[in-house]
């Protein structure tokens, strides 16, 4: 072992956080954020999910290899690997299911708007389009076909009221501040400015918190 390894063992936090740990942190943060907001957040960039999918696949292959190996010493490592694999799969599954639930709730809203469409991954967008098509065709076959042709659209915006549901962007969310920040909060009777210190947990509207979360000054809790 050379001097760098020894030093690294003595002071274990003095080297860069390895990529896998950072991926786990990113995945966890993305999961918590997605579970807490009322609207769909952008699909994590920088290839996070592709890497995680790859690693899970390789880990499953490794587990299959090790199961065939009847050596009792590797048995315990197998249990640990399988447990961790289940945890990862739970995170990924819960994340994807939450996104699908949000897409399902406001299908037309996310498909019709160009900006919002980029928030979905390609598979999600294809799913949303097909779902919308199936739903619309089902409605047409059931009862919509009996309406006059002018009323068979689902995205009518006449009469100052749009048929497309928007998610409620003002719902209350809980955030944790990662840096000291001044937050402009909108309330029912008054608007105010809240001085927050790092480590504060604040409940406020999602529309106020969104800027902070996107800049990285706060995270959802």
């Amino acid at each position: 072992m050379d001097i760098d390894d020894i030093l690294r063992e003595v002071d274990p936090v003095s080297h860069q956080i390895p990529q896998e740990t950072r991926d786990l942190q990113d995945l966890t943060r993305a999961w918590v954020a997605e579970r807490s907001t009322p609207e769909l957040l952008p699909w994590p960039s920088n290839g996070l999910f592709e890497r995680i999918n790859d690693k899970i696949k390789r880990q499953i292959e490794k587990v299959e290899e090790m199961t065939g190996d009847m050596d009792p010493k590797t048995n315990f490592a197998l249990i640990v690997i399988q447990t961790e694999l289940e945890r990862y799969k739970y995170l990924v599954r819960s994340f994807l299911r939450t996104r699908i639930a949000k897409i399902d709730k406001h299908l037309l809203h996310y498909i019709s708007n160009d900006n919002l469409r980029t928030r979905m991954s390609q598979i999600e967008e294809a799913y949303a389009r097909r779902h919308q098509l199936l739903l619309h065709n089902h409605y047409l076959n059931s009862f919509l076909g009996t309406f006059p042709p002018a009323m068979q659209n689902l995205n009518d915006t006449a009469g100052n009221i749009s048929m497309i549901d928007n998610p409620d962007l003002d719902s209350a969310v809980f955030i944790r501040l990662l840096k000291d920040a001044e937050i402009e909060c909108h309330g029912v009777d008054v608007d105010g400015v809240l001085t927050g210190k790092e480590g504060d947990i604040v409940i406020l509207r999602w529309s106020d918190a969104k800027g902070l979360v996107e800049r990285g000054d706060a995270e959802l809790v």
Partner: protein
Amino acid sequence: MALPLPPGLTQNEVAFLAEMEMVTVVPRQRLDSIDLLGGKTPQLRPPHRAQLPLWLALLLKKQRRANIVPPAWMHPASLAEIIHRETKEDPEAFSPPPPPPSRALYSQPGTARRLNPSYLDDFTQTQPDSQQDPNSILSPPFLPSNVAESPAGYLPYHWLEVAEALLTHAGDDMPAPAGEVRSLLRDLVEVRAAKMRSSTSALEGFGDAWLTLRGVGAMELAENRAFLAGLVDGVRKIGASAEATRREEEEEARRGGDYGGDGDEDSDEDMGL
């Protein structure tokens, strides 16, 4: 297929998150480093201590391959001090969260810096660009707040989940009889729950829609999330039309102010004649 839960983490999910916290473990058997998805586990060589995630520590404890070292804040003296602080010194707010971890700097002896990978470039000098990457700001459950070296007298974010898990599975490793620690924890839970319930009265004041809860725990948040969020959303929906009219009036007042209020001056001069 789609997750039917409303926004916000449930208690089970919070418990899952808490299992990612790191704790200190004293192994009883040798174990090689395992290549996990989240990184390599450290090599376990008794009697050296090692830091492992809580789920792995509980697995090892159940198989009697390791003992868990309880964090310093779980000591009865520390818990008693926290209870004292919550009841006597600060009956309104929760006790403060643990301070962020700091590290001594290699390049500038005598100075301590906040533990943040971007600041550690001083030592490794592998990254020339040490701008503050938001992902590098550590926060629970990735803060080392439940290991043996964590400061006593502060309740970390996942205190209730970690305390329950350690008492249930590693009760014999506690510094005091488990019953004593449990009763202190119960007291703490009650005090904080009462504070949580009364915190909503701060919301009544002026119809404010924001509230700072510094030092609240994860499980307490999860339990009261539905109540608090429902309260804030309900108040908002009830006052939605009043708020819309208020914003319109403010808009008009601002626009009217931009034109200098000429109309008012004219009418005053007319009346003065």
